[in-house]
């Protein structure tokens, strides 16, 4: 976080965990098709959405991220056959747990975005950025330093 950051020029930081086989390709397609989406996201490529450990999400919030999106292949399409089914169970729980400890539910989202869904990628990222802009900077779970 920059020391110059003020409320007037604040822009959200959003971390997107994108699965290598679907969502990363979807994001690539969005780029190739010249679809415009907000530059607030940072894409982090993971082999599978099942690779995303709930602790990664917590750590991101600790270190000053305003929103997290976990995205992977649609159920049934996983490159590793079943990875995203486990992701679904895990993050259904995780979402509820984070809401339970007081995090705004909009800040942590999961979506299925396939390699051919460039427009969906654009739409999801735009919506997420707008939602988080409306909420303002995240102070919860954050490490003070």
């Amino acid at each position: 976080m920059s020391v110059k950051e003020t409320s007037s020029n604040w822009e959200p930081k959003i971390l997107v965990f994108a699965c290598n086989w679907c969502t990363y390709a979807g994001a690539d397609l969005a780029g190739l098709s010249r679809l415009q989406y907000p530059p607030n996201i940072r894409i982090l490529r993971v082999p599978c959405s099942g690779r995303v450990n709930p602790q990664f999400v917590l750590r991101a919030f600790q270190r000053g991220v305003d929103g997290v999106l976990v995205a992977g292949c649609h159920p049934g399409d996983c490159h590793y056959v079943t990875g995203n089914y486990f992701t679904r169970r895990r993050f259904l729980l995780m979402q509820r747990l984070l809401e339970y400890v007081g995090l705004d539910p909009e800040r942590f989202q999961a979506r299925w975005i396939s390699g051919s869904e460039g427009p969906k990628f654009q739409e999801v990222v735009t919506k997420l950025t707008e939602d988080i802009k409306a909420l303002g900077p995240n102070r919860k779970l954050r490490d003070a330093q």
Partner: protein
Amino acid sequence: MKEITLQMQELARELLQKGEVNVVLGWEKGTFWYLSPPAFVDKPEDVERLVYDDYCHHNLSKYLMDYRYQEGKVAVFLKGCDSRAFNILLEDNQLEREKYVLIGIPCPGMKDQEKAKEFGVNGDIPLAKKCQECKYPNPLVYDYFLGDKKAADEAAATKEAKAKEYSDVEQMEKMTSDEKYDFWSSQYERCIRCYACRNVCPACNCRECIFDQSRTGWIGKANNASENQFFALTRAMHVAGRCIECGECERACPMHIPIMLLNKKLIKDINELFGEYDAGVKVDGVLPLGHFDKNDPEEFM
């Protein structure tokens, strides 16, 4: 319970004299009248130490982990929640069933130690909170059963009907997100990271806990609000689907953090999302987060 104490001592003496087991795990009277810490009896003449009273909170199954690699058998007394803990340890392949002689005892519910401290010996001491909501007061797995099994089962049936679970979780859910955050912050800023909740938990049986690893780089050791919340949420997620609601974490916590309020939220959600499930009731290798169903709720479209 006097009667059960005598039966316990008798059976323990018999097992030790015959040489069937090397050690018997039970409870003994502690420093104060409201404390009954675990007892490890390995000589027949010491069995008199064993007691069973209103304060035998300790979950003995977790202590079996210390005997995993030793030769010979170990006998252990199990209440309802202890037996679920034993099942979870079996499920996680931490224990071999044949190495342990399980002695089931019915549990009328243990009394609240904090209240006991407050009210004194002659006070009317209520049951501990976890015991008021207990669904399984009788052991689910055992080799011997002490006490009256039928009476115990009947008592269990009436108790189950009365169990009003999750009312505190629901109350919590109704708060606004800022209220929730303030509540949990105020709880976890007291946390001293002693890891007593982890050490006492039968579901926390990793060979090396991630909070003991020093070079992962993404786990902080600092004791501050943010790191404590990270610990709290990570611990809750790690025992999700395996928490047997014995409430030991909360009892062991020196700072009185309502840890079960997090665990119960996860149990409630698992029940709602993936079907009714009670951890440690069956040993079938099917854990809520260890498998999936293609028809699980879909919210990520």
